[in-house]
């Protein structure tokens, strides 16, 4: 009976299933990316067969951890250690790939044998030494995506590398990356004499405790952990998973509301039928189960189809981007269980209200029911046919508005958030007198930018330049608060430090000092004069500052030297701010810097944020979320309008019989759906404000978020809503015009 009921309204059931399927597909495809990455990290780290890992504590990701090679020298002398190997890992831009993982191992590493050469030569071979340019080995999946074979060249962050061989480790994550000699990787990632971590093999597992105690004494600023334990503590992946659930959840909620809508509509339509079932002795419960069963069936089908679409997406994307190779194109059973439990819960939650309503129908009233928008007529004092029709079907209109509202609201909130961050970023630089800002060119994220101080020195010597200040920017995890701690590096005597407005204490005067942002000081309950422990290093708090840029207050300022040591990039800065003697020369100087130093990217400070890779990536993500939301939201509106047309078949027949032209019917339905869209847009703006507020309340990073509502964001939201309404209404309106008056009049 459940299946027959659903098949009676095939198209609508299909649309509902599709809405849910898209949500599930998003969870499956993005989720498998995250879990694949996690599996990759796990197998890479545990595959090393190392007993212990030494790394920098609380780094966001291995790529952000820095351990000095001096540690390696000391390890050599320790009797408990049988073998050890440094490893540097980071991500760069590579020929159209925004995030490409590279690994660097020393030539004599005990781990190098894991990279089995499938084609070409190893990095240590005499052939590799003969090639022009820096040799690089590509993982098999990466080679496939980039369509490279030995002998080809590959451009990474502006430098050219020569592919000497193709390797395979069997770990999808490693096979989607590239292998370099340690020193080449250090140069590429701007971390000379630094590794991300050390793998350690003990001569006897029993010596573990003794070694750990010794090592903790020796390197109080480092963390020593077992490989498995270390793999599980990668916060970056946790964030990625959170992101996946936010996107997938959004799509699922929209799909779920659409399903509830469709189920409600279905029981309105079948009111008489339910009356008959009740009259012939069906119990409340039996009706409830029938409707609930339909919802669960729809959701499960959505889950099944979504898994298929998800798998196809992963398969398709894995052919064109390395990001999806890291997940091994495989969908973990965990993920499927998660996705299916979500859809079952969705089926129950979304189906419960319609089922309850159906089960509460009184048999006599149900038998008397004559269709239309329910017995009671609601009328607004204003508005024509379209408005009255929407007002009449209140529940459905509200549910549809929710669908559009969430769609538009989510897009708008994200956009507003990015704008807010951009505005903050701009304020951060515009607050100073610096006319030009410089970062490294071809980088995936500003935090990865590393400019050699020698370039800064050369620019400082330009006759046009008045002052130049290096700025360092990074973030670490604070285990106490669970959030980020922003670290800024600035020289005590330079221009950049002046923008931190001291409200208590002093500015920095020497190394091992920190000025702490007001927000962070309050959160951690720190006073001037206290010390603070950051990733194992202790700093004395000398001042407390305020800033109009919220996330600047969520951390502290170190001297540039301390910050460089801290992030393992001696003599490198994230960016430079330049003040000119004559500000009108700014454009010429920008051109000159870009021409003379191709490894950096200079822009006018007002334009800096516009082409920051971070925002480009975020905007890319927003586009993906927007597209997804628009598709699911559009399916929702389409479904509602189709229902509206079905329900009013007779009415449309009457209008046609009374001489209304097809055009007029088309206009009426479109008008209704566009009004629905625009009202949904209004609801979306409200939801955006609400989401924006909720985001700023999130623990950890919420305080850093500030939403910025600019006029064009609103215009875009309304445009999206309008398009949703128009697209959703087009097909139903077309169908309405195709109705034959005679048949429409006969429709029951």
């Amino acid at each position, binding site marked *: 009976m459940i299946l027959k009921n659903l098949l009676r309204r095939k198209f609508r059931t299909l649309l509902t299933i599709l809405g849910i399927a898209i949500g599930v597909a998003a969870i499956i495809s993005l989720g498998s990316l995250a879990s694949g990455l996690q599996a990759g990290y796990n197998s890479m780290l545990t595959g090393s067969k190392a007993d212990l890992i030494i790394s920098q504590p609380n780094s966001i990701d291995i790529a952000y951890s820095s351990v000095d090679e001096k540690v390696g020298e000391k390890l050599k002398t320790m009797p408990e250690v049988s073998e050890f190997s440094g490893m540097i890992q980071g991500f760069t831009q590579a020929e159209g790939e925004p995030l490409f993982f590279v690994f660097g191992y020393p030539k004599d590493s005990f781990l190098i044998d894991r990279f089995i050469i499938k084609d070409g030569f190893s990095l240590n071979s005499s052939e590799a030494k003969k090639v022009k340019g820096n040799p690089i080995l590509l993982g098999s999946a990466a080679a496939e995506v980039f369509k490279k074979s030995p002998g080809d060249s590959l451009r990474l962050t502006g430098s050219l590398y020569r592919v000497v061989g193709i390797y395979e480790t069997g770990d999808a994550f490693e096979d989607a990356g590239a292998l370099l000699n340690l020193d080449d990787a250090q140069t590429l990632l701007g971390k000379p004499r630094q590794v991300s971590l050390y793998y350690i093999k003990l001569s006897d597992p029993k010596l573990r405790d003794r070694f750990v105690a010794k090592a903790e004494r020796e390197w109080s600023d480092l963390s020593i952990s077992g490989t498995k334990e270390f793999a599980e503590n990668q916060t970056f992946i946790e964030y990625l998973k959170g992101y996946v659930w936010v996107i997938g959840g959004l799509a699922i909620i929209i799909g779920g509301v659409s399903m509830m809508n469709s189920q409600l509509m279905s029981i309105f339509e079948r009111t008489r039928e339910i009356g008959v079932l009740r009259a012939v002795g069906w119990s409340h419960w039996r009706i409830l189960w029938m409707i609930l069963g339909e919802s669960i069936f729809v959701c499960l089908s959505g889950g099944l189809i979504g898994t298929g679409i998800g798998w196809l997406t992963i398969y398709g994307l894995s052919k064109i981007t390395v990001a999806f190779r890291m997940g091994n194109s495989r969908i973990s059973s965990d993920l499927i269980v998660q996705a299916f439990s979500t859809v079952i819960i969705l089926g129950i939650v979304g189906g419960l209200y319609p089922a309850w309503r159906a089960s509460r129908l009184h048999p006599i009233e149900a038998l008397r029911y004559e269709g*239309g*928008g329910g017995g*009671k*007529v*609601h*009328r607004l004092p204003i508005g024509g*046919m379209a408005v*009255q*029709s929407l*007002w*009449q079907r209140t529940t459905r209109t509200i549910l549809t508005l929710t669908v559009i509202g969430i769609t538009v609201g989510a897009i708008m909130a994200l956009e507003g958030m990015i704008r807010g961050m951009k505005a903050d970023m701009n304020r951060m630089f515009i607050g100073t007198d610096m006319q030009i800002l410089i970062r490294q060119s071809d980088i995936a994220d500003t935090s990865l930018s590393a400019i050699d101080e020698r370039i800064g020195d050369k620019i400082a010597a330009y006759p046009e330049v008045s002052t130049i200040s290096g700025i360092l920017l990074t973030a670490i995890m604070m285990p106490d608060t669970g959030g980020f701690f922003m670290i800024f590096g600035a020289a005590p005597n330079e221009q950049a430090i002046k923008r931190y407005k001291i409200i208590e204490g002093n500015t920095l005067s020497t190394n091992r000092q920190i000025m702490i942002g007001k927000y962070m000081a309050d959160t951690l309950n720190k006073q001037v004069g206290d010390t603070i422990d950051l990733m194992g290093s202790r700093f004395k708090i000398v001042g407390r500052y305020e800033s109009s840029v919220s996330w600047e207050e969520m951390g502290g300022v170190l001297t540039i030297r301390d910050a460089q040591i801290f992030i393992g990039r001696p003599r490198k800065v994230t960016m430079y701010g330049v003040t000119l003697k004559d500000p009108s020369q700014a454009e010429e100087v920008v051109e000159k810097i870009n021409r003379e130093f191709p490894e950096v990217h200079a822009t006018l400070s007002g334009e800096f944020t516009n082409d920051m890779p971070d925002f480009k990536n975020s905007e890319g993500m927003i586009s993906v979320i927007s597209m997804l939301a628009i598709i699911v939201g559009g399916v929702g509106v389409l479904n509602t309008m189709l229902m509206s047309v079905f329900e009013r078949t*007779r*009415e449309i027949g*009457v*209008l*046609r*019989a*009374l*001489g*209304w*032209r*097809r055009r*007029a019917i088309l206009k009426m339905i479109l008008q209704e759906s566009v009004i629905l869209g625009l009202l949904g847009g209004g609801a979306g703006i409200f939801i955006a404000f609400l989401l924006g507020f909720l985001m700023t309340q999130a623990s950890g990073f919420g305080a850093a978020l500030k939403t910025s509502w600019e006029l064009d964001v609103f215009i875009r939201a309304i445009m999206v809503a309008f398009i949703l309404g128009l697209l959703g209404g087009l097909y139903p309106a077309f169908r309405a015009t195709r109705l034959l*008056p*005679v048949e429409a*009049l006969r429709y029951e």
Partner: protein
Amino acid sequence: MTEEKRWLVETIDLTRIYGDGEEIRALDHVNLRIASGELVAVMGPSGSGKSTLLNVIGALDKPTSGKVLIEGVDLAEIKDKDHFRAKTVGFMFQLHNLIPTLTARENVEIPMMGYISASARHNRSKLLLELVGLGDRMNHLPGQLSGGQRQRVAVARSLANDPRLVLADEPTGSLDTIAGQELMRLINELNQSQGTTFIVVTHDLAVAQQTRRVLVMADGKIVREDIIGSPIEEDLKMWRHSELGKRILAGDEKTLERFKIDRNQKEALAELLSFANGNVREQ
């Protein structure tokens, strides 16, 4: 002026067949002529083809073969059927089919939308609702009106564009006897005062008797046509066509004996009722 032009509606061998496999002849070679200003009832059992006839004349449905001429013009040659439906015919349905969310006045305005300006619509709808006696109910929703009042709104709506022909499909079907009679009285009045031609499909003999011509349909054909006379004539006619009347006039021995009617009395009765024979056309 040609001969055909005298008729407002004329059908020539009108046939409508439904179904692919087992075909149903909803209309089977129907020939019919209705002059302007007539008030005609179409009677017959369910499935006899009454509604199909109305739908085909109203250009809601197309004939399988044959022709419908409206004022001598073949309906098949009218390209803009929407315009035809809006301007030339008005429709009334069994279930009033008013839009529940619109007021009486707005419902009346529907057929005029896209044809005349909003202010003209407004004035005309007021006039029409006053004409059907609902001048004080203009801003009521259909749900706030009685069944009879709703059908009056439907009458007003059918007259919105001042059509020459109104097609009413069982207009009294959902009304009680009194409301039904009142509605027919209104239709009668409008027929006489406005000169609008009405074709009323009905099951109800009492309703049919309030018109001036009755077409009886069965199996897609017009099987009888009846001109409605004065009430006494109608009563006699009804008796003439009743089972009892038929038996007596046929000279059924048992019946004559039972009612103690002799041969002479029977002949006198037959002569008295001979007018009823002449006015009934058996097809």
